[in-house]
């Protein structure tokens, strides 16, 4: 009997605790609601999902704060959603629920996928309503996020792939720097001279195993990766990895790796960190990366940084590369006033002043043409003239189907497959065979995907 009483007592205590906890939660929610409502009573809440980290996140949060202070109609709430890849699935899976965002940032290669979900309102609608002058935004960036004349989303954080070189090291070994718009053989020359004259103390060059760079080689050679003009003319049904230009590019890298003038840093975030570390410590002469790395490569770097355009195959003119980065989309599952708020916020981010600040803070390019006149950007160019190069590269290229991104679903898969092919090629495998394997898998993927979506 005593044990029974004991357990009853314990149950009672447990129950009391439970009730207390529930009461506390209920009380808290009742108490906190009016407080929150009092602040945002007149303002329409606009939830903004982004995937920015580091300095970019800080600058973005400043923009959000400034936007909220600049007007009293909308309140933008910025929420960080992890990395680009995972954010895409989160955006799709929360659509139509209270948890979904009103405006979100999504990466370059998700463009076709996000558009085809039918979950968004093209920003073109607001551009037309407001007679917004889109010509102030860089054409190369706009073309990436447009389909058949409709602007689907607004380009935001935009970068260009560029080639970085250590100008101080080149001077030390009396090597003529590569030209602003170099060919493959220009780069080979510098890499070879660096390796030889430093007696292998300095590694000449590395090309990261990265699908993005693979795509850019094709864009710059003027070759379509997917049929239907890289998807800009219709739904692609196949890819073409085994074309002559790509084989030539891969052979260029493979030969140089064999000769020891190029080195292999592998794939992924680790490769990026390692090549950056080597470059900053003067053990690597050249590498290719997003222009968004400029900030990281200039702070605390005693050596002078050199930047050139993305290299192009010998014997032809460069076609220009596609941008990288992400754009801003407006969800269509929110009422029109929320969507309007999202658009107002996007407009705020795209002003000449915001864009200039954005480039200075992050290394992403200022997309508003008038930003170039802003004092903050002028000061940056004066201090670091090389930072002008990526913007010039962007403006130098005329947008066409092959350098405006690939409008294809499953580009994450494509990058995965091309990276595997690159890894095999870098390790000495047969180029044609490695590319053909990747091509076969990608075509099977596209076929299945088109069937599942009823294209």
């Amino acid at each position, binding site marked *: 009997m005593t044990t029974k009483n004991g*357990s009853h007592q314990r149950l009672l205590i447990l129950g009391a605790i439970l009730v207390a906890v529930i009461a506390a939660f209920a009380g808290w929610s009742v108490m906190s609601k009016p407080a929150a409502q009092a602040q945002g009573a007149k303002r329409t809440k606009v939830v903004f999902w982004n995937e920015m980290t580091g300095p970019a996140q800080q600058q973005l949060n400043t923009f959000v704060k400034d936007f909220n202070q600049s007007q009293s109609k909308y309140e933008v709430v910025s929420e960080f959603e992890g990395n680009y*890849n*995972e954010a*895409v*699935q989160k955006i*799709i*899976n929360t*659509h139509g629920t209270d948890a979904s965002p009103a405006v979100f940032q999504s990466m370059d290669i998700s463009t076709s*996928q996000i558009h*085809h*979900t039918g*979950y968004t309102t093209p920003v073109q609608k607001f551009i037309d309503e407001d007679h917004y002058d889109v010509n102030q935004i860089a054409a190369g960036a706009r073309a990436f996020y447009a389909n058949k004349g409709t602007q689907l989303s607004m380009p935001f954080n935009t970068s260009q792939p560029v080639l970085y070189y250590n100008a101080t090291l080149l001077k030390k070994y009396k090597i003529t720097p590569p030209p602003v718009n170099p060919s493959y053989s220009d780069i080979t020359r510098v890499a070879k001279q660096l390796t030889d004259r430093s007696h292998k103390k300095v590694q000449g060059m590395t090309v990261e*195993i990265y699908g993005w760079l693979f795509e850019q080689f094709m864009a710059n050679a003027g070759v379509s990766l997917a049929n239907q003009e890289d998807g800009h003319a219709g739904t692609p049904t196949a890819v073409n990895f085994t074309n002559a230009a790509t084989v030539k590019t891969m052979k260029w890298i493979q030969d140089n790796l064999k000769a020891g003038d190029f080195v*292999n*840093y*592998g*794939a*992924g*975030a*680790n*490769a990026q960190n*390692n090549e950056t*570390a*080597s470059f900053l*410590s003067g*053990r690597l002469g050249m590498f290719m990366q997003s222009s968004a790395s400029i900030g990281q490569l200039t702070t605390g770097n005693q050596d002078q940084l050199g930047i050139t355009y993305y290299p192009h195959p010998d014997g032809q003119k460069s076609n220009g590369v596609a941008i990288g980065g992400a754009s801003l989309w407006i969800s269509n599952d929110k009422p029109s006033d929320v969507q309007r708020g999202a658009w107002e916020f996007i407009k705020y981010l795209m002003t000449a002043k915001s864009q200039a600040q954005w480039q200075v803070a992050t290394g992403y390019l200022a997309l508003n043409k008038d930003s170039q006149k802003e004092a903050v950007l002028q000061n940056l160019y004066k201090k670091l003239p090389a930072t002008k190069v990526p913007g010039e590269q962007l403006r130098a290229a005329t947008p066409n189907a092959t350098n405006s991104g690939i409008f294809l*679903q*499953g580009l*994450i*898969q494509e990058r*995965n497959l091309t*990276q*595997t092919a690159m*890894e*095999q090629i870098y*390790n000495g495998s047969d180029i044609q065979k490695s590319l053909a394997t990747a091509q076969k*898998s990608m075509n*099977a*993927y596209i076929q*299945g*995907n088109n*069937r*599942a*979506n*009823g294209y």
Partner: protein
Amino acid sequence: MQQEITPASKPSLKPKTLNQANAKGFNLHVNDKWYALAFLGPSVLILGVFVFYPMLRTLYLSLFLTNNVGRPTVFIGLKNYVNLLTSSAYQASLQATAVYVIGVVAFTLILGLLLAQMAVRKLAGIQWFRTIFSATMGVSVSVAAIFWLFIFSPSIGLFDQIGTLLHLPLVQWLTTPGPAMIAVIISTVWMNLGFTFLILFGALQMVPQPLYEAAAIEGASPSYQFFHVTLPMISPTLFFTSTVTLIGAFKSFGLIDLMTAGGPNNATNLMVYQVYRDAFLNGNYGLASAESVILAVIIALFTLLQFKFLEKRVTY
């Protein structure tokens, strides 16, 4: 408390007479179905929502192509499975998983047992060693990954610095397929060691001392004592740890994601990682579901085999 629950939850196992005796009090006999429902209800509900429904849904999705918002659209029967099992990439993934699992389980058990055997000796300051040996239990996956990334890093890594001192050839640990697999196995074993050590250490301490004394009087050598006294006595624990480590190894994700992300050249692309890639990066839920089903079947099969063959050798 215990006695009130058991007849309700397992009514068929209890002799009728007992129920009838209770029935006089509050008629459990008549209402036992309702009691069963009341007691089992919450757990059935929770399991149903979080275990059984997802399982069936996965099975269902694995028979379809899924569109870009993850909805099943085209029924293709077992084609996902056929495509997977005939694809060389997936076969490579299966093979990598086998190497990884065998490596992890074998080294975790051997090293864990070695450490436990060392720590069980009563020496001065042994407490300190016991704490150190079990310390990896308190290390989170992310911390461990960063720690090992530093060690394996190509230019500033500890391993390569030692190698340079000894004039050994430079190993690109995480960018060459073979070494990358070794690197992730080492890291995983290190992660597992704390837990395995602690469990085996506990088991070793439970072995009755008189057994050793008797063996010593018989003139048994230390190694004979280990194989004929220690091992049989701790076999249930060894069996438990091997099963847990095996299942854990099949499900390894964090370290792989942070250290190699399945690379280089898909050398460490384990089955779980492929599921993650297909579901959460490629948005290909149908294929990912088929991969999950295959993984679940393999784990179940191995666990079953372990129970069937290893358990016979276990002395309780």
